[in-house]
């Protein structure tokens, strides 16, 4: 019982992290139909930048902010200089972003090396709290869940309660019509790309603090984002949350009960979803 609850709690915290990464990915896809395969690189780059700033200033929150902003800026630049030129050509965009991810990964390896980095957490988030049955549980992991809920709520408010959100949703349905109505669609695209990339940067710091940073994490988080989004449904906010929960729980409960084969479980879920509901649990067909 204790093990099951512990694994469930772990699953939820991992899901929270996956959610923050995948939500940026799905936002970008939802509006622009760009499959940004450099999303994992944004995550890792954010983590490294955040680590450098946090280590230099001793302020974790400053690291978080700088990571979010600088990765967001890089996202803006990539969208404006590269992806916008090949708007609508999905295969090309996918290939270009793969290329970018390889270049960025090698640059990061050259600058930061192959070592493992860890953040020094802000003092108030260190330590563990005592939970019923489960026992001691790290505070920071609970903070990650809170952060994910906050991010989810903010994105929901932006998309469903603001004018900018209305424009984004209109763009998902019909880009050309939206442009015809006088909205500067390329600008909206750049902003959404910046927002999605910035979320990946923030997730880099949060994930790097909860776990650690090392080369290869970029590919891992890209893969988890892809799986989460495929399961949940491309472009759906709630779908991403459900997808993240499913994958996070599957991963951790698998590790707890049959660790050798746990890796397969996420992919079994993905294959089942693809077979029965190819558009994802909450995705729209077509």
């Amino acid at each position, binding site marked *: 019982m204790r093990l099951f609850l512990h694994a469930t709690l772990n699953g939820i915290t991992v899901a929270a992290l996956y959610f923050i990464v995948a939500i940026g990915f799905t936002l970008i896809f939802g509006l622009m139909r760009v499959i940004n395969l450099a999303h994992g690189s944004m995550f890792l780059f954010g983590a490294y930048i955040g680590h450098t700033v946090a280590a230099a200033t001793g302020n974790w929150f400053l690291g978080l902010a700088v990571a979010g902003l600088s990765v967001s800026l890089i996202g803006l630049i990539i969208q404006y200089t590269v992806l916008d030129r090949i708007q609508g050509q999905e295969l090309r965009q996918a290939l270009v972003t793969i290329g970018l991810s390889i270049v960025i990964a090698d640059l990061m390896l050259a600058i930061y090396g192959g070592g*493992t980095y860890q953040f020094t957490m802000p003092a108030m988030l260190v330590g563990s709290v005592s939970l019923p049955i489960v026992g001691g549980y*790290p505070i920071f992991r609970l903070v990650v869940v809170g952060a994910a809920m906050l991010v989810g709520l903010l994105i929901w408010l932006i998309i469903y309660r603001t004018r900018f959100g209305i424009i984004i949703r209109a763009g998902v349905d019909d880009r050309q019509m939206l442009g015809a109505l006088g909205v500067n669609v390329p600008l909206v695209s750049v902003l959404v790309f910046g927002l999605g990339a910035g979320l990946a940067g923030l997730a880099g710091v949060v994930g790097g603090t909860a776990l650690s940073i090392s080369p*290869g994490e970029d590919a891992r988080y890209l893969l988890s984002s892809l799986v989460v989004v495929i399961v949940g449904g491309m472009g759906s906010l709630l779908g991403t949350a459900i997808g993240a929960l499913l994958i996070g729980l599957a991963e951790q409960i698998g590790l707890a009960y049959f660790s050798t084969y746990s890796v397969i479980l996420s992919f079994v879920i993905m294959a089942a979803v693809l077979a029965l509901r190819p558009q994802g649990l909450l995705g729209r067909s077509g």
Partner: protein
Amino acid sequence: MIAAIITRFLAVALLACLLAAPAAAQTTIRLGGIMTLEGALSELGQEGLRGMEMALEEVNYTVAGKRIVFIREASDAKPDVAVRKARKLIEHDNVDILIGPLSGGEGLAIKEYSKTVPGKTFINGYSAAQETTLFNPSPNFFRFNADGAQWQAGLGSYAYDVKGYRNVVVVASDYSFGYTQVLGFMTEFCVKGGRVSSKIWVPFGAGVTDFSSVIARIPDNVDAVYAMLGGADSVNFLTQYFQAGRKIPLVGSSNLTEQTVLRSMRGPFEKRMIGIPSAHIVADEGIVGPAYQDFVAKYKKRFAGTGLAAPSAVYYGYYIATKAALTALEQVGGDLGGNQARYRETLSKLVLDTPTGSVSLDENRQAIANIFVTEVAQRADGTLYTNVIKLNRGINQTLGQPRAAFIARGAPSRDNPSCP
């Protein structure tokens, strides 16, 4: 037209013969090196290269009056790539002696390849799979380094006798190197009478960075947790173990307390690292002896600014391998004639002087080596290091167990050994 081509061809062939003539007289010796200079293990590969360079610079690239031509090739830890590079070095660059490779899977592949070129000599760089030399050895493949199980020699006894642990849980990476290290620890620990009540195998290379559910599976009623993880896995496991507030003492595999891990563990949990015992072919400080101190000092001087803070195990492996190749060359006066038969004979009987003492080979051309038992300690400036408790000399491949019975148990696996 055709006649002209043939004439030109003959002229080139003649020229080639003339140019090749001095090489036939062997005024130079061609030495090849393979290390992972590409891919995820590229930093380790650099260390391998440094080890070879250091050994070659010590003799000024000259042995028995002959100049050594050093040719290196980069692999990326994939066995097929390592074999392709070895083939290139042997067939194209015409090397006499080949040093490498770095990782376990590569080692097994190169050993098999060496059987197809019996006239050349192969000396293992750093790869440590036990099977490479214990089962179906190759007559021209030599390993002057300990295998992955030997690396853990002395740790089982230390945990049982000194720490007083009787019941241990194993948490280990689920791949061949994990099995090998666990075997190294358990062989001694089980013979002493210790029990390993359960083993938790963690998927390796599958992107598991969250070990908290694995940690939740560790029962409270054991004396210690033996953790066999490397690199980022080690850092993640240790941090999450301490974060979860677990208090059971840890015993570490060779790479759990490597300098790269210790450096990353600076921070809120650094104090919890102190005292974790481990065993390895390299160590940072303590009763290491003057030869080892000298070895470390030379590394720091030569590779200041470019190398690591201290020589790594990979550096040590390649350095020893190159030193063995050169020492045997000196002893045969640089004579590699007769398909190198005399050279190989000399290598098999070589008693090599290493920074940890003398090393010789067994009948399978596998090192009988010296292993450090260490504990993590902290310097005044806060940095963590491995402090040598003891240097165990003359560790053979069967870890002091009867050879026939040891071999009969087969290769290390999830279930070998077992003492629940």
